[in-house]
């Protein structure tokens, strides 16, 4: 690859236009590196060249975001760069938001890789970390040298289209996307080291921060089951024999919808499980054990329930991503409501 062309985005202060009194200036472009751009240029050596610097006042950017982004993008586009560097913004809040906005727009709208740097508590981090490479910096420009040293290798990798490793390897703020990589020590040793730090009251870094767990409160009880139209939905993988939709035994990419018209009993000849997380012997012998069609038909006849809904829905819960399950549930529940279903029996395994 020939020399990488870089455009640098800065605020009025770092572009050496002025302090707060100049925070209202609209976007403008200057040739070559300016201010911290010098440090970046030195670190790039001859691998990359900062061809232009786009600058904008922080107040102006945040008060006229749409126009500013359009103007900044247009200025960047004319330079046809391979890479855009924003900031670093350290702990400057408005500047951090501007850097995140520009980096994100450059990536989304121009398809050009971008890197920025911020202090962990800069509001720009929470707003943009899921979509933008943000390198953690100190809270003030004292940390410029370290920030440049951390941002440059990642920026060059992105510009060259090389594959980017996990946040721990490449030194960016985790994006919420889990990526595998090989540590130098095995897991048990890392656990012992982490425990010793925790016991000594020293800082330690968990490898997986606990998420805010999505707990769903149950609905109110069904008042009169004798009038209820009951549907069966399962993550236990019950499917017609032969698994016509080829639902995966783990990490299911789909769910199936199957007709129960005229079916009073799930026989071993006609039904089986696609689930790979449990011993299928007993489910394959009699799938009613997971999806109780036989009992519900009896209840239907005896009037204990109003009716059994015509279709059942089935997927495999084994190792299936929560995001996928949510998607299936949203689609399935829409159909259930449209079908007038008033109660659902969810069976798992």
């Amino acid at each position, binding site marked *: 690859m020939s020399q990488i062309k870089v455009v640098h985005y800065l605020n009025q202060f770092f572009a050496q236009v002025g302090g707060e009194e100049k925070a209202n200036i609209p976007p403008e472009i200057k040739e070559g590196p300016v201010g911290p751009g010098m440090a970046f240029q030195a670190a790039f050596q001859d691998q990359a060249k900062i061809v232009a610097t786009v600058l904008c006042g922080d107040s102006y950017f945040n008060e006229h975001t749409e126009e500013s982004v359009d103007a900044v993008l247009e200025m960047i586009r004319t330079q046809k760069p391979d890479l855009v560097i924003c900031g670093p913004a350290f702990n400057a809040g408005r500047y951090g938001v501007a850097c995140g906005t520009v980096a994100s727009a450059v990536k989304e709208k121009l398809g050009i890789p971008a890197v920025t740097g911020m202090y962990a508590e800069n509001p720009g981090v929470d707003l943009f970390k899921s979509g933008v490479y943000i390198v953690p910096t100190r809270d003030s420009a004292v940390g410029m040298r370290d920030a440049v040293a951390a941002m440059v290798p990642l920026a060059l990798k992105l510009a060259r289209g090389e594959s980017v490793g996990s946040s721990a390897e490449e030194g960016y703020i985790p994006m919420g996307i889990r990526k595998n990589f090989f540590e130098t020590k095995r897991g048990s040793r890392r656990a012992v080291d982490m425990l010793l730090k925790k016991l000594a009251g020293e800082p330690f870094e968990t490898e997986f921060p606990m998420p805010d767990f999505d707990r769903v409160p149950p609905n109110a009880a069904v008042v009169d089951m004798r009038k209820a139209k009951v549907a069966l939905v399962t993550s236990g993988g019950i499917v017609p024999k032969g698994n016509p939709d080829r639902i995966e035994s783990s*990490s299911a990419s789909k769910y199936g919808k199957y007709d129960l018209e005229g079916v009073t009993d799930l026989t071993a000849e006609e039904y089986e499980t696609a689930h790979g*997380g449990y011993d299928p012997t007993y489910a394959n012998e009699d799938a009613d054990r997971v999806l109780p069609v036989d009992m519900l038909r009896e209840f239907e006849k005896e009037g204990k329930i109003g009716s059994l809904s015509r279709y059942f829905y089935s997927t495999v819960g084994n190792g299936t991503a929560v995001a996928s399950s949510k998607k299936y549930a949203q689609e399935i529940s829409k159909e259930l409501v449209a079908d007038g279903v008033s109660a659902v029996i969810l069976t798992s395994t």
Partner: protein
Amino acid sequence: MKLEVGYIPIRDIRFGPESKVDNNVLYVNKRELSALILADEGIASVALDLARPGESVRITPVKDVIEPRVKVSGTGGIFPGWCAKVRTVGEGKTHVLKGAAVVTTGKVVGFQEGIIDMSGEGAQYTPFSKLNSLVLVIQPKEGTESHAYEKSLRLAGLKTAEYLGKLAEHLEPEEVHTYETLSVTEGIKKYPELPRVGYVLMLQSQGLLHDTYVYGVDAKQTLPTLIGPTELMDGAIVSGNCVSACDKNTTYHHLNNPVVEDLFSEHGKALNFTGLIITNENVYLADKERSSDRTAELCAYLGLDGVIISQEGFGNPDADLIMNCRKIEAKGIRTVIITDEYAGQDGASQSLADADAAADAVVTGGNANMVIHLPAMDRVIGSIDRVDHIAGGWSGSLKEDGTITAELQVITGATNELGFNTLSAR
């Protein structure tokens, strides 16, 4: 309780007229070993094969991996309750054929067996690609139901490992490691200033072919209990599992538990390795509550300052893991948990099925949903036809040219939750 473990390194494995270890090469008499395996009435046929590190060989569907060991002195024998009488092991001397393994294969369940590649991308994810392996391809008698088949396969693996282990009985080990566990009071007297650290080892016990055995007893019918760490090294815990390949603890893992090794390595230096508690992962809520309550009580009873908790499997056992962690932390005992993740193929989904703020120190074995590409191999040991159906595969995972695109889940031992590997995720 003190155990000396002597390593006899094995650098190659071959078939030969006499089973023996000579010049670090393990020779296996096919006929003699086959006869031993076929003594089981449930087994119709056995084919023995060899796989060495670096070879273009794919082993599948893998059920268990076992390390050949023998007790040279001390009470009892290897795999008590199966190959030896139920006597307490973990004392005296044990010899190990280091670098050798017995791999059992068979289509027990179909979904729940894994892949070991001896070379290529898959090899870097499984520790078993580095072992000189004797592979047992076992067919059951017609009509054998899967639970009986699993048991036959399990016993064949253990018997073979015992048979090979015995070849090391009179050899001089090249390396000897000594592990000693003091009584609780002796430990406190000897290391009054060191933090008392325990290990909670969770055993897969969901039932229906998700079973682990302790001295021959099915772990789902046990209450949490204390066990000497060196007892594991003599085969007190045996895998009877057919679960997703990447995070099940094989018998090999139990024999070489890395948490036990790494806690021993710091014992008397940075910590006092006070005790090992085994607990189970049953499916019913009442069982989960009972076992996690007992486990937390035992930790408090031992006066522990810190605990490492390791998991086996995923999904349902995540609930046991978090319960153990929460209840032990509530006793004022600090914890680190070892788990793995199912964050989706894109890595963007929630990694665990349960979570709690108390679990603030987590070690991960990686995201099992990550998609990997495995090259074709010159030779397949076992049978390749289950690849699309095993957990982590999908319709079309196996291509006509023999390459495989599937989730990391399919690789035996890839995201191990004892911390056996260096793989991690962020």
